[in-house]
């Protein structure tokens, strides 16, 4: 006890001004967080928002949060420089290394992590298919929200899937389960299948109720063909499993497990599952999420992978990216005759996709040719100005664009070919989604291919050291313009999809904030990594939609950019390479911090010597 006291005293006496400042900063951070999440203020009653934010009880929570953060930071700093404890002589093992040291721990960690993820996925999926929450709800109602959806079915389904995969990977011991008599196992398995079919079968109109169980009822599940389909499928899985003889007491080594996860068959399985999820899962979402999936997530995925070429691959900071998006959208409007200026001929939006791509690409080349000779930060400003000019044109050149009152109605996608007549419309949001996927998937593969080709290597070379790249005979301007044009054309294609879906275009949909949002998607995900960028786009576009969907979370949409700004700073300070960085970019960032190479065409700060 006394040693603890002595230690506490020692800790107390070694605190200095830097620690005090650190703690104060953290508390101030907590207060800023309180301000960010507090109510809106107004200039006519100054300090209203500030006062109300700090009067609520949760501000105490934020202060405690800040304090805790400050203490943690202090603790970390003090133990790192050895004031509070002896300096370690041997380097400390990282968490992963410790896990790898014991295979058992690795297994446990992997199992529990995947199980947790599957449960969360199941709950989210259940939540998506439930009704939206239009008002602030009590916890009781929130609970009901989950109860009314097919939560349990999804939960079981996902857990069963997880179990099957984990069993395959780790060869879990199912000795105890096998000790039951075989008929009981089969019967139990079939009952579980039945329950799954009842809860999670999307074709079944009935919700979980006793009515659906009794064969006498009209709504009984036994009158529906899918139930028998699931039963047969269940039996086909369960019966071989029960009668399969398998060697006991053998576990795969971790190397074998790694080999299994990267084997071609597993990769094929991953693609298969991903493809299935992308194509099938949206069918079971509610309409809100189907629309969100298209308009908020799909289109922004397309925009993000386009900007990724410019920012991630070629390393050029483009702040006017939304201009090309606007150009694509207005081109569509032009060819469907909804602008004040009439086109020579009307085109189906399908045919305007190539037109929009070409027009946006031309705009990209026209902007790129003169400006891409510039230094990176100048380029950022010039593109910012270009984005602003396009916005001003859309807003003020009324005779061309219709101005701020918007364009006329843009015609929809339609097919009139060989006797098929189909017009895309609002009532089926998924038809748009599949169309978008048909553009998005080829784009992803094309860009990935380009990045691994001669072009991609040239981009990397230019990004890392333009002078060295030029000395190797790479025409830097050509490749930069190429990246710019490709990014622009992707945005143009995204513009078509937005124009068609939204129907009427307003200049306010193409403001600078959107450029910054897309930039954040790219940076958050990880510049230069297509998977990362897609993940970033999906996560960052999904979170606000989710918060909007559930009004009880009290999220104001107007605060979105506030959080985006804060996220940008935090990412740059703590993880500039993004959540899933590309390996090469990560190395570039690390090199730059050690003063090697110029990580991007802008160069590290300390390296420039004035001439």
């Amino acid at each position, binding site marked *: 006890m006394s040693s603890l006291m002595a230690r506490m005293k020692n800790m107390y006496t070694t605190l200095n001004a830097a620690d005090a400042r650190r703690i104060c900063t953290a508390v101030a951070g907590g207060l800023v967080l309180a*301000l*960010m999440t507090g109510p*809106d*203020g*107004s*200039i*006519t009653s*100054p300090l209203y*928002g500030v006062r109300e934010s700090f009067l609520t009880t949760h501000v105490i929570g934020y202060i405690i949060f800040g304090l805790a953060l400050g203490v943690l930071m202090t603790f970390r700093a003090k133990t790192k420089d050895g004031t509070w404890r002896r300096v370690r002589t041997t380097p400390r093992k990282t968490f992963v290394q410790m896990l790898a040291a014991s295979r058992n721990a690795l297994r446990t960690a992997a199992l529990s992590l995947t199980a947790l993820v599957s449960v969360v996925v199941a709950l989210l999926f259940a939540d998506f298919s439930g009704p939206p929450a239009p008002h602030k709800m009590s916890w009781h109602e929130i609970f009901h929200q989950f109860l009314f959806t097919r939560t349990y079915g999804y939960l079981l389904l996902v857990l069963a899937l997880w179990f099957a995969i984990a069993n395959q990977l780790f060869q879990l011991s199912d000795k105890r389960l096998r000790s039951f008599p075989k008929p009981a196992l089969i019967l139990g398995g079939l009952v579980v299948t039945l329950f799954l079919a009842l809860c999670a079968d999307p074709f079944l109109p009935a919700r979980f109720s006793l009515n659906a169980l009794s064969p006498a009822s009209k709504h009984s599940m036994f009158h529906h063909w899918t139930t028998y389909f699931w039963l047969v499928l269940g039996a086909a899985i369960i019966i071989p499993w029960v009668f399969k003889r398998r060697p006991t007491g053998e576990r795969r080594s971790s190397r074998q497990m790694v080999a299994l996860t990267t084997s071609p068959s597993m990769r094929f399985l991953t693609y298969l599952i991903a493809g299935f999820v992308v194509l099938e899962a949206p069918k079971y979402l509610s309409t809100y999420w189907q629309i969100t999936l298209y308009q908020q997530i799909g289109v922004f995925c397309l925009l993000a992978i386009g900007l990724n070429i410019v920012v991630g691959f070629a*390393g050029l*900071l483009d702040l006017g990216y939304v201009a090309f998006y606007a150009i694509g959208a207005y081109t569509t409007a032009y060819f469907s005759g909804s602008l004040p200026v009439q086109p020579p001929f009307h085109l189906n939006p399908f045919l305007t996709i190539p037109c929009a791509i070409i027009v946006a690409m031309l705009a990209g080349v026209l902007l790129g040719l*003169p*400006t891409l*000779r510039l230094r*990176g*930060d*100048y380029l*950022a*400003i*010039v593109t910012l*100005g270009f984005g*602003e*000019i396009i916005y*001003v*044109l859309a*807003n*003020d050149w009324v005779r061309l664009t219709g101005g701020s009152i918007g364009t006329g109605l843009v015609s929809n996608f339609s097919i009139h070919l060989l006797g098929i007549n189909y017009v895309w419309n609002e009532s089926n949001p998924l038809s748009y989604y599949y169309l978008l996927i048909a553009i998005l998937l080829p784009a992803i593969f094309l860009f990935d291919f380009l990045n691994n080709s001669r072009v991609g290597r040239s981009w990397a070379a230019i990004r890392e050291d333009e002078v060295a790249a030029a000395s190797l005979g790479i025409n830097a301007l050509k490749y930069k313009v190429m990246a710019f044009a490709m990014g622009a054309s992707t945005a143009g294609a995204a513009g078509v999809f937005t124009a068609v879906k939204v129907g009427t275009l307003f200049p306010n949909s193409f403001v*600078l*904030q959107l450029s*910054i949002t897309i*930039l954040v998607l790219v*940076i958050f995900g990880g510049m230069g990594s297509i998977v990362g960028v897609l993940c970033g786009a999906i996560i960052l576009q999904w979170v606000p939609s989710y918060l909007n969907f559930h009004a009880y979370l009290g999220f104001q949409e*107007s605060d979105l*950019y*506030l959080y*985006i*700004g*804060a*996220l*940008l*700073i935090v*990412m*740059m*300070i703590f993880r*500039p390479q993004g959540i899933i960085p590309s390996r090469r970019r990560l190395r570039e960032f690390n090199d*730059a*911090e*050690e*003063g090697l190479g*110029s*990580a*991007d065409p*802008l*160069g*590290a*700060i300390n390296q*420039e*010597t*004035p*001439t």
Partner: protein
Amino acid sequence: MFNYLIQGIFAGLIFSLLALGYTLVYGVLRLINFAHSEVLMTGGFAGYFYLHYTIGQHLVSGNIGETLFYIVTGVLISGVAGTVVAVAIERFAYRPLRRRNAPKLAYLISAIGASYFLLNLAGKEFGRYPTATSQPFDNHVVFTLWGGQISMYDFVILAASIVLLVTIDWIVSRTKMGRAIRAVAQDVETASLMGVNVNRTIAGTFALGGFMGGVAGFFVAINQGVAYDMGFKPALFAFTAAVLGGIGNVRGAMIGGVVLGIVMFTPIYWLGQPWLEEVIAFSVLVLILLFRPTGLLGERLGRSA
């Protein structure tokens, strides 16, 4: 036409004040401070609240002493608010990166983040609608010159900016701090070896630029009222002005601002479409960057584009 010319000159003086912030920071850090527009916004809001609480809905009598009092105190308050925000931006968005020696792209992005954060925080706390500011003086037309009207407001801006521009020129070229700034701009490592406290000098640079930005915000607030996004466009023009005069060059920024103002506003007389001024400004920017990237007076420090 003369009206537009005068409008251009006085808008240009505000651009000059703001451009100084860009040029000073660029001089020492070789960075465009994207968050500088929020310095103007803060200055504007500080001025708004100051005038709101001292004058409110009353009409000012318009005697010269009162006008002078409101202008001087308002300029000081806005300037100090701008200074505080500029230093805070340096502290939270730049210094953590500098300590880690991050690549330049990281600075740009972090500055954009800071700008967005401040912009939207102001929007959240003060509402997202533009509001008119109480007038600290009677804005009557003093005299008319060849059809161009010169108002009291123009006089105030002229006087205040001349005083400020001369002061800052003096600070940079004569004082110890100015010498430190120039030393850091020339060579960071050598300057620190010579005993210049680099961190303090950088903070001082931000503070100087911030003061000018805050004052510019005060004048914009009196003239056009305040809004959370009031900083965006003037800042873009001011950057153009800084490039026009030669970025990194203090006197260049002053001249660049006025020249840009004239170039931007005068053609509107013939074109008749006020929204074209932005198009003109950016065309100027692109042309300058293409044909004379060192600006009118030449980039005194650093390499060319």
